[in-house]
């Protein structure tokens, strides 16, 4: 299992690494986790005007088990925190997380609330933060492009050898 990527140094050879990263970054299937107002902006980014399918990101995965990208759009409350942890765990590796909007970055306008988790990175590791309240759909496209650049420069062996799925 994972012979090429985990056990042998083949994945470090430049052409192989380029090929694997290229395949991974242009075929993201997003499990959108729309919680609040930011999910409307996410949906707007999936419509025809600002289309993120042209970046290779296919929206509306049928469940966490068929997704590689989790976009947390909206306020994460304390009651919802174990749910998102469970869904993140059920996604197959390699997986990436985009935190979309102020509420999931840091608690946003509800930073002093009794029931809000101040930032989804307290629960799951985040790769790209997209700021805004709510961010424009173009900001999501920018965030996806940043994620794709991050995956391009990624060493998948180091990612899994370190034991966590957070990329340095």
């Amino acid at each position: 299992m994972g012979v090429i990527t985990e056990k042998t140094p083949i994945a470090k050879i430049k052409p192989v690494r380029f090929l694997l990263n290229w395949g991974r970054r242009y075929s993201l299937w997003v499990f959108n986790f729309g919680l609040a107002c930011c999910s409307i902006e996410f949906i707007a980014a999936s419509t025809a005007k600002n289309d993120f399918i042209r970046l290779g990101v296919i929206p509306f995965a049928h469940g966490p088990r068929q997704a590689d990208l989790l976009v947390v759009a909206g306020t994460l409350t304390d009651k919802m925190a174990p749910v998102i942890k469970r869904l993140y765990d059920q996604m197959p590796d390699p997986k990436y997380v985009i935190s979309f909007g102020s509420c999931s970055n840091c608690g946003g306008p509800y930073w002093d609330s009794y029931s809000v988790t101040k930032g989804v990175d307290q629960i799951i590791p985040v790769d790209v933060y997209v700021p805004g309240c709510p961010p424009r759909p173009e900001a999501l496209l920018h965030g996806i492009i940043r994620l794709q650049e991050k995956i391009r420069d990624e060493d998948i062996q180091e990612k899994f050898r370190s034991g966590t799925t957070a990329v340095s």
Partner: protein
Amino acid sequence: MQSVTYYGSYGVVLAVVLAGALLVIVAFGAARLIAPHRPNVGGKRTTYECGIDPVGEGWSQSQVRYYVYGFLFVIFDVESVFLFPWARVFQSLGYQAVVSMAIFIGILAVGLLYAWRKGVLTWV
């Protein structure tokens, strides 16, 4: 000459089967080689129920009324299996083939009429 084309057509079938098997082997083999293997991290193996702990059993019951669909499908599917090779060759066989097949379809049409009159085709 005729025996070569006879086995030749089976050769085509074999090639198609091999191509299909090769496709599956390459796809799953590549996934095995490239994909990381992390089966037991966190709650990955738990049953999916929108992120909360699953409640109740995983089995659900189907309604018995759906058996009618399976039943009718089998009958008319077998009929169409006989129709396809007949359609390929009947033009060279003359009117006798048409009449035989018409009798065959007629018998099955009587069966369909019986099912219709029995009310099997209306939803309950």
